[in-house]
């Protein structure tokens, strides 16, 4: 099981690394970070705030774009090009294929995030040196972004396991946007009545809670993040992703491939 999983994971990672689009996105982020100081010519503090906000948001947005962009093709591309035929004719279980693909894309995003983090800290050092203890706290914000990647990758893979790439992209992006505003959805439910109230409540619990994973503004303002929140978010992201992957596996196990 482990050798097969690691083979699929490493091949998915290798495919992404050899995909030039990925490099373009990294370069784009680096250019964005480099241009950050141009927007903030006011004071050192504002410059740092802008840089942190822009940098962490860019890491998040570009990671999500990569997750969706690659994720929508993870399964459908293998079916369309029939490469899956030669995989399923081997002693590979369908769940191993799904989990291997998931881990491969997560590994890609993690690597991507590491490079972007290095770039981000380099930019931060360049414009606000020396780095302070508060800057280390920014890593919690990046850690939460990685948790966000775990969820969005799982969700995209779920859609990719039964839907076309275009619909997978639409569904995943829609869920990302709704998930980002899940706190607002909960507030809306609190002030609603009847069926709308329960519908909004149900939706707010079903969609991924990206709002609680977004602490960019908090860490940018040098505010601490509670340890309990780190634990809760970690457990939440792992459980949510595992559940979504399980659903993807259940769908894929029964699927007749064209």
């Amino acid at each position, binding site marked *: 099981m482990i050798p097969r999983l690691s083979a699929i994971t490493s091949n998915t990672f*290798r495919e992404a690394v050899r995909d030039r689009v990925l490099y373009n996105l990294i370069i784009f982020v680096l250019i964005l970070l480099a241009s950050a100081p141009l927007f903030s010519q006011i004071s050192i503090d504002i410059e740092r705030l802008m840089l942190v906000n822009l940098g962490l948001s860019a890491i998040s947005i570009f990671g999500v774009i990569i997750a969706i962009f690659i994720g929508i093709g993870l399964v459908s591309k293998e079916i369309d090009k*029939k490469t899956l*035929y*030669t995989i*399923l004719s*081997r*002693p*590979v*279980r369908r769940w191993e294929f799904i989990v291997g693909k998931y881990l491969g894309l997560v590994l890609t995003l993690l690597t991507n995030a590491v490079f972007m983090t290095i770039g981000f800290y380099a930019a931060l050092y360049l414009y606000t040196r020396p780095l302070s203890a508060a800057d280390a706290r920014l890593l919690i914000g990046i850690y939460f972004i990685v948790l966000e990647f775990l969820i969005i990758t799982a969700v995209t893979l779920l859609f990719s396991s039964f839907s076309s790439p275009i619909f997978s992209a639409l569904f995943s992006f829609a869920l990302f946007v709704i998930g980002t505003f899940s706190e607002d959805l909960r507030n809306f439910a609190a002030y609603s009545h009847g069926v709308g109230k329960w519908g909004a409540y149900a939706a707010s619990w079903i969609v991924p809670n990206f709002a609680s994973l977004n602490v960019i503004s908090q860490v940018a303002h040098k505010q601490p993040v509670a340890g309990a929140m780190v634990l809760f978010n970690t457990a939440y992201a792992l459980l949510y992703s595992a559940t979504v992957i399980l659903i993807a596996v259940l769908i894929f196990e029964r699927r007749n*491939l064209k």
Partner: protein
Amino acid sequence: MYAIEIQNLSKSYQVGFWKKGLRPALKNLSLCVERGETFGFLGPNGAGKTTTLKLLMGITFPSSGTAKILGRHFQDPEIKKKIGFLPEQPYFYDYLSAPELLDYYGRLSGVSAEERQRKIPATLESVGLNDAGNTQLRKFSKGMLQRVGIAQAIIHDREILFLDEPMSGLDPLGRHEVRELIQKLKDAGKTIFFSTHILSDAEALCDRVAVIHKGQLRGIGVMNELRSAAGTNSEIIWQGANALSAVVRDVTEPHVTGELVRATVAREQQDRVLEKLRQQGAVLISVTPLHGTLEEYFLAKTSQAEAVQP
């Protein structure tokens, strides 16, 4: 124990917007393939050949029926260690080189790192790709890709090979190369189950053939028996259309093009017809024994199907 034992395998696809209609792709297929046999699965396009292979490989699920491979249920993942599969017009990860692709498939099939190191160059050599080096597959020709396809199917310790239209889409040279490769595997004693609609390939390689048409098995024939029935007719081509009247009762299917005449003659009538043609002053162009038995068998079986199903 049979290498492959298929019992009443059926597959219907749901059709229509609400997916309430059913379109049968395979109807109650039952057949057995002996170990070490090269078995040709013949049929026109859309006959159900690929559906059968996809069912056996676990890519789609049967509506009813079952199959055994080497005595074990065909969906048992363990049995997949013993089989190799080449899909029709395969596409492989084009960002990989041939050794990388074989390494990936070897890992998926449970081949150890040490064994892979030894087997990958040997397998590439056996399919004539030892010069491929680190060239990515996107730069490979169709024939080279087909050879990579066969290499991935034999990288592990397989006993049975399933090949779906292994020669389709290849130029004559590519077809010849792939045919040679299959012949080598056949000589090595492997069981080969291959689907094709190219009859000459089946005739050259197979021990037995099955004909499938519109999802139904139309017949199974042993190639040697089919061959023994061969050569009962010859095709004669001569110049001199006037001579046709003298032999018209002895030949069948005469075709006249200007002064050239082409006709089929039974082997026992051949000498008499040639003598008559000589007497009439016709110029003999060629006499060719006809080996169209598999084609005749195929056409008979598929036309039976046409008769059964309006």
